[in-house]
């Protein structure tokens, strides 16, 4: 029986322990998403600065990175980065005479998704920096600020209102993309859902419950990001 009545569904979620297993899965998904998003942000800031003010070689290399990552499906990228990335790192370690490291678990997920997120963050942040009115930066120069000080005090805070909508989108994508890590066998929410559904045969119940969890996480994120946006753009006139 695939379509269980509501009461039965709830019983399945509460008594079998699958409900709490899914919550654990959700927590793992969120942890990986958070790590990946953070890594992506670091790559993004560095990448945007590299694209805007780096040398020609660096700009081209970054263009290549963002172009490829943004046109190849995440599923494929995840497999490539997972296999090639581990080979590469371990190859280097072996060449250095070090022991191989275990490229499994959450770290791998974070690295893989982080590299993907980094390409998108690079573009979001680059765009945001470009939307900071030129005069704001000129004013900083006119008052004798060094490039680093200008970046820290003016450019980054001033670009935030422009970057936040894009970044909060990226966060939602990171959260949902953790589902793709199921192809690597990671036990995050989607994977747990599949196991629960397979074991209990209550497919609809569990897929639906997982959908609700993602949705809830999304809505909470939206709420937070709207707060954050309001805070960051408190200096902007409301239109």
């Amino acid at each position, binding site marked *: 029986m695939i379509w269980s009545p509501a009461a039965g569904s709830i019983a399945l979620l509460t008594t079998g322990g699958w409900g709490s297993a899914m919550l654990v899965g959700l927590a793992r998904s969120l942890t990986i998403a958070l790590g990946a998003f953070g890594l992506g942000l670091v790559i993004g800031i560095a990448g945007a600065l590299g694209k805007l003010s780096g040398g020609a070689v660096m700009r081209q290399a970054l263009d290549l990175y963002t172009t490829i990552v943004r046109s190849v499906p995440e599923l494929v990228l995840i497999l490539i980065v997972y296999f090639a990335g581990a080979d590469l790192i371990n190859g280097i370690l072996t060449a250095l005479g070090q022991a191989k490291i275990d490229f499994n678990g959450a770290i791998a997920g974070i690295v893989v998704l982080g590299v993907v997120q980094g390409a998108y963050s690079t573009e979001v942040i680059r765009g945001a920096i470009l939307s900071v009115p030129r005069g704001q930066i000129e004013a900083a*120069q006119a*008052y004798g*600020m060094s490039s680093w000080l200008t970046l820290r*005090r003016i450019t980054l805070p001033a670009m935030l209102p422009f970057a936040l909508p894009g970044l909060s989108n990226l966060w939602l994508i990171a959260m949902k993309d953790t589902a793709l890590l199921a192809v690597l066998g990671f036990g995050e929410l989607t994977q747990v859902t599949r196991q629960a559904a397979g074991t209990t045969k209550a497919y609809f119940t569990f897929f639906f419950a997982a959908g609700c969890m993602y949705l809830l996480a999304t809505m909470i994120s939206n709420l937070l990001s709207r707060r954050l946006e309001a805070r*960051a753009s408190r200096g*902007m006139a409301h239109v």
Partner: protein
Amino acid sequence: MLHADGIRKTFGNLEVLRGVSLTANKGDVISLIGGSGSGKSTFLRCLNCLEHPTGGEIRVQGEAIAFKPDGHGNREPASKAQMRRIRARLAMVFQSFNLWSHMTLLENVIEAPVHVLGVDRKQAIDEGLRLLERVGLYDKRDVYPAFLSGGQQQRGAIARALAVQPLAMLFDEPTSALDPELVGEVLKVIRALAEEGRTMILVTHEMSFARDVSNQVLFLHGGLVEEAGAPAEVFGNPKSERLARFLGSFH
């Protein structure tokens, strides 16, 4: 105190400045006038190296800004540190104000003193509040620039400039972005600064104001100083035909 000597500036093939010189001593108020595109803004921006002059020399309190080739056929300041030091002393007030939009008015005013000049934060705030009071914006100290009227923003920008205790202030069309009603307000502040003996160099379209406030007027045309002198002379008795025509188009 501030000398510019034979400043030239080309953008690609366009020769915007073809040797413009200016000497400002302490307390001088110098107005730059000229048609649209005559290079007034460019010259002002050369003075604090926001544009790197293609040729000529700039000396601030006797210290010449050193230049070196930038590898693209132009020059750039040889020492970034020197350039920053000099910029911090030549406070610029932009035509479009360019107050930092993510900071309140007070934060705007104390930003450069605290982070560039290394003034103690507490002291910078005291001084900043004093300056805001002076330009009539004490009430607005915690307001973000976007919520200020044009005239208030302009006065805020002036306070920000005053906060670095500049040797000279550079104004680029301080009133052209303002309502006629706000123009008067800003001119009043500038006039008061002039009376205090501040050194100021201003690009302006307000001839009556230039006449009123400045002790030297430079008329730029075709990348050169076409005519210069005391305002009474320049406005009352223009020698060049072009200046006469230019002044004729104002009433």
